[in-house]
């Protein structure tokens, strides 16, 4: 049974009942099977209602769910011949950013992903998905490869943000992100990004400045974390729920402002309840988007990308 979030507590009795029945001695009996089917139907209806009306703060919790599929889950399932490439060729290998080559269907691609990690050891090794400058320099190496071999760059974004640490600052965190953005603008190959979990500010944008940005329905993408915003506005991180509502960080809200291209549907009850379905949906979205981008001649691709980023901004313009 998947770990229940605060707002899912109402499901607890049903889940318990289902579990008891499934463990009972005559679980195979017709009567029990029928009963279980009814209970599951009831639970799925409840989940449907809950997930059809998530508040933005609840969406943040789903986006951060520990059982939610992570970058490597998508990479391993969607790509064949995945070969991981490591290191920034200067200082180290940042495990918060996974990079490599692989095939999406029959098409070779360069792959990037921010990986938060599953168990405690992996989380620590990957710094909870918070890259340092080495991670962004590794990402730039991948952009160079994509450019040189005219391969699409496919990135999976899932990070609380770039790491705010002493060493990261000493080794040029800000510059590394800026260079990544610059490289993304000039890369002579299509750049595709799916925000699969958490898109934390500039640390996420560095891997999302290309030609296609998809986002899972319950992923979030924000200029600042709701906790950070709340502590600035009210000196109180506990009001994150209020902040989440104002930041416009859900896929639906971002799609409305054309900041992303597509909202990718999640299975009922969220990606963490059916990883395979979520991964398949992301794979289908990527293949469709890639097919469209590949039709563009490189010059046109770059022109479209330049126009896209040039046009972002909402302001008024008074007569001179």
């Amino acid at each position: 049974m998947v770990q229940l979030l605060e707002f899912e507590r109402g499901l607890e009795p049903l889940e318990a009942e289902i579990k008891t029945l499934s463990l009972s001695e005559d679980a195979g009996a017709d009567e029990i099977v029928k009963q279980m089917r009814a209970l599951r139907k009831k639970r799925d209806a409840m989940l449907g209602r809950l997930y059809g009306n998530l508040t933005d703060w609840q969406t943040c919790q789903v986006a951060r769910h520990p059982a939610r599929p992570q970058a490597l889950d998508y990479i391993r399932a969607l790509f064949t011949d995945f070969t991981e490439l490591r290191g920034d060729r200067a200082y180290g290998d940042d495990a918060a950013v996974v990079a490599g080559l692989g095939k999406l269907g029959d098409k070779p691609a360069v792959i990037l992903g921010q990986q938060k990690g599953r168990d405690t050891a992996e989380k620590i090794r990957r710094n909870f998905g918070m890259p340092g400058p080495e991670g962004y320099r590794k990402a730039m190496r991948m952009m160079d490869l994509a450019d040189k071999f005219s391969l699409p760059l496919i990135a999976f974004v899932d990070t609380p943000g770039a790491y705010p640490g002493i060493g990261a600052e000493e080794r040029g965190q800000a510059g590394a992100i800026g260079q990544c953005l610059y490289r993304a603008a000039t890369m002579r190959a299509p750049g595709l990004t799916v925000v699969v979990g958490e898109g934390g500010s500039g640390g996420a944008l560095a891997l999302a400045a290309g030609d296609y940005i998809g986002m899972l329905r319950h992923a979030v993408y924000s200029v600042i974390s709701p906790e950070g915003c709340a502590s600035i506005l009210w000196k109180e991180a506990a009001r994150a729920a209020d902040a989440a509502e104002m930041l416009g960080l859900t896929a639906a809200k971002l799609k409305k402002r054309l900041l992303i291209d597509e909202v990718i549907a999640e299975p009922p009850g969220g990606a963490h309840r059916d990883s395979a379905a979520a991964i398949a949906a992301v794979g289908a979205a990527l293949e469709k988007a890639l097919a469209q981008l590949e039709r563009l001649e490189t010059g046109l691709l770059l022109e479209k990308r330049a126009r896209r980023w040039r046009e972002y901004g909402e302001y008024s313009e008074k007569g001179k």
Partner: protein
Amino acid sequence: MNWFTDILPGIKKKKGKSAATVPDGVWSKCPGCNTAIYSVELRKNCYVCANCDHHQRIGAEERARLVFDAEPALSPLGMEVRPVDFMNFRDGGGGKSYAEKLREAQKDDARREAVFACRGTIGGRAAVAAIFDFSFMGGSMGSVAGERFTRAVEDAAESGAPFISFASSGGARMQEGVVSLVQMAKTTAALARLSARRLPHISVLTDPTTGGVAASFAMIGDVVVAEPKALIGFAGPRVIQETVRERLPEGFQRSEFLRERGGVDLIADRRELREVLISLLSLLRPPGG
């Protein structure tokens, strides 16, 4: 920002006033060494304390006055671009809305924003600049800053002039959500187009340059110049302190610290900055220019 605590009696203290608007005949206290400085002297000294060399934060138009030639007059760029509270960003409770904060920051001039962009000459050579103003909502980069910056870069590219950015910002403007975040990519992409024309971008980092501004155009200049002791970094020191829970090293994230670690090319005293820029511009001339 309370360097007006010791002004002469009879002169009203105003919140958020920047050094550039100090009326003549006023004394203020240097935040660096607590010495009382006469405003006329301060202005003559480029808002640098003659006693301890502390560089005060200055407004964008004052910055332009210090760097550009007095003649011909500056042509401001993109002043007609104005902010909008398009997300209806209310912080609930008793706090101020974004729209109110904007009005307050604009004071009596609706053209004011976090970026002032202009074209002029420096040492007789044409140049375009985008100058951040920390006194306008912490120099935060939203749609207006991003658009004015981009127009300035494009003006430089079209006229074949070098581009100079002066950063002074806490980062992205939260009240514009992801629209403000993507200004990082927008400004950076504009610079890529400038580069394609082989025109220089000189980036001047002033106190403070952090967050989304540091992590976009500010660190990718062809030459990166910093003012002395400016705070420069991705994350603010308070956030880092809370994350790592250890003492931050001496001088951490200051210009001198960055220069030692290869983060910036040179540190220029503000009183010599104009000469440094004139020299750089004469060295980095576009091919055939």
